[in-house]
């Protein structure tokens, strides 16, 4: 074989190898492009399915709340009112030593009836359309105040606008969940809620002066049982909003809910 011929072979083989390598990479990139597309579609389908499931779950939950609310109002409430009426009728016919006890019982019964009405109201989704979001939240705070264990402040900033019924309901339930968490775990004495209607979004800040917690530790736990915080995150993602919870042990908790305006989505 001649010298030049051999060199030509070397160069040609080298060029062929490099081209083969380029082809291999092209196949890899092409395959990955298709796979990425497939993964994207799969993730989209999964996310749609999750959203639908979550929405269905929330609808069922709201229906259940509504039924419970009606039951409390129509049956338990009515029954208790009847008991109160009967007690009132007994008023003149009882000995004086029992009268005091009866008065106490009537007061207690009156309070129970009022509490049940409040609970029935807050469970009923129609309550939100009657009072509006900030009215509903304000009433929740008033309920807290009534217990005598909390001092609450409620502030609204900006020009109030209405979100869709579903979004407001989800927001309201999340605020309720946050307030419930404060009652159950925070050992707080003050609760502050600030609603800020900005041009591009509505932000609701719920803060307390309670014992706080380690957010990282809670996230791990919640991941496992799929409740509480994770539930709130899922609900927020369903209405395309965000929730941030900041807390330090001993320094209270601040939760910030942000919901972009529907027109900006």
């Amino acid at each position: 074989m001649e010298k030049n011929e051999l060199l030509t072979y070397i160069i040609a083989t080298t060029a062929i190898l490099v081209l083969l390598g380029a082809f291999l990479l092209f196949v890899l990139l092409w395959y990955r492009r298709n796979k990425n597309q497939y993964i994207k579609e799969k993730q989209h389908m999964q996310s749609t399915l999750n959203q639908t499931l979550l929405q269905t779950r929330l609808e069922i939950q709201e229906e259940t709340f509504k039924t419970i609310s009606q039951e409390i109002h129509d049956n338990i409430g009515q029954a208790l009112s009847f008991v109160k009426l009967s007690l009132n009728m007994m008023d003149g016919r009882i000995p004086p030593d029992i009268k005091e006890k009866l008065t106490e019982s009537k007061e207690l019964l009156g309070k129970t009836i009022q509490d049940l009405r409040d609970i029935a109201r807050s469970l009923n989704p129609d309550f939100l359309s009657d009072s509006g979001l900030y009215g509903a939240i304000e009433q929740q705070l008033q309920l807290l105040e009534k217990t005598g264990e909390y001092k609450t402040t409620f502030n609204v900033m900006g020009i109030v606008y209405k979100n869709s019924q579903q979004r407001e309901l989800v927001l309201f339930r999340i605020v309720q969940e946050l307030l419930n968490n404060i009652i159950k775990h925070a050992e707080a004495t003050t609760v502050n809620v600030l609603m800020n209607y900005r041009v591009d979004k509505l932000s609701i800040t719920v803060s307390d002066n309670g014992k706080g917690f380690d957010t990282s530790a809670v996230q791990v736990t919640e991941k496992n049982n799929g409740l509480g915080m994770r539930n709130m995150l899922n609900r927020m993602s369903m209405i395309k909003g965000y929730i941030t919870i900041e807390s330090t042990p001993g320094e209270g908790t601040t939760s910030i809910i942000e919901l972009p305006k529907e027109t900006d989505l």
Partner: protein
Amino acid sequence: MVYIIIGTIAILISFIASIVQYKKAEPLWLRLFPWYLGFTMTIQLGGYLYSHFLLKSNYFIFNIQQIADFVFWVYIFLKIYKTKGVKVVLLGLAAFAIIFSGYNIIAGEGFYNFNSKTSTIISIVLLIFSLLYFAELFVNNNRINYFTIPTFWICTGLFFFNLGSIIYLGLFNYITSHKLDEDGKIYGVIIVTLNILMYALFTIGFFCRTIWKKMSY
């Protein structure tokens, strides 16, 4: 001489790029590249100057450099691979190549001749390393944009360099003993072209996140 200059410029650009991106380097092993490229550039220039001024063969310098270079890549691939099995394969192949290199220096082609067989073995092993990396990417079930991954560019550069140089380096001793490429032109064209390609891909790898971000906005 012109090939040396062009080759050095290619490394120099990549070297500067790796220094510029040093603090932003992610993953962290990318921070080894300024040192690696600086070392490579010094050896290339040192080897050239040694043979040019002392009129002696510089093969022994490159015999040592290719082993050091290989050890560097073994470390990098150990960091890159995610699968344990692949890491075991890597270590097995690396051990084989290093033992072979030692044997070749002691009982084979010797210290002062260019270790063409070692070079070929190392090239093949590095090619396998690159292919194993591509295989890991191939089977990955996450959404990946290769163009944003520095490792992808670096492995691609290494892959092309070894693929292109394997024939010439494998036949190096045959070519030199038969004086097939006396003026080193073919060597210059092949190796310098591959060097430019490899270092250009490395440079893209150092900057790829920034470039991709700009393209996305």
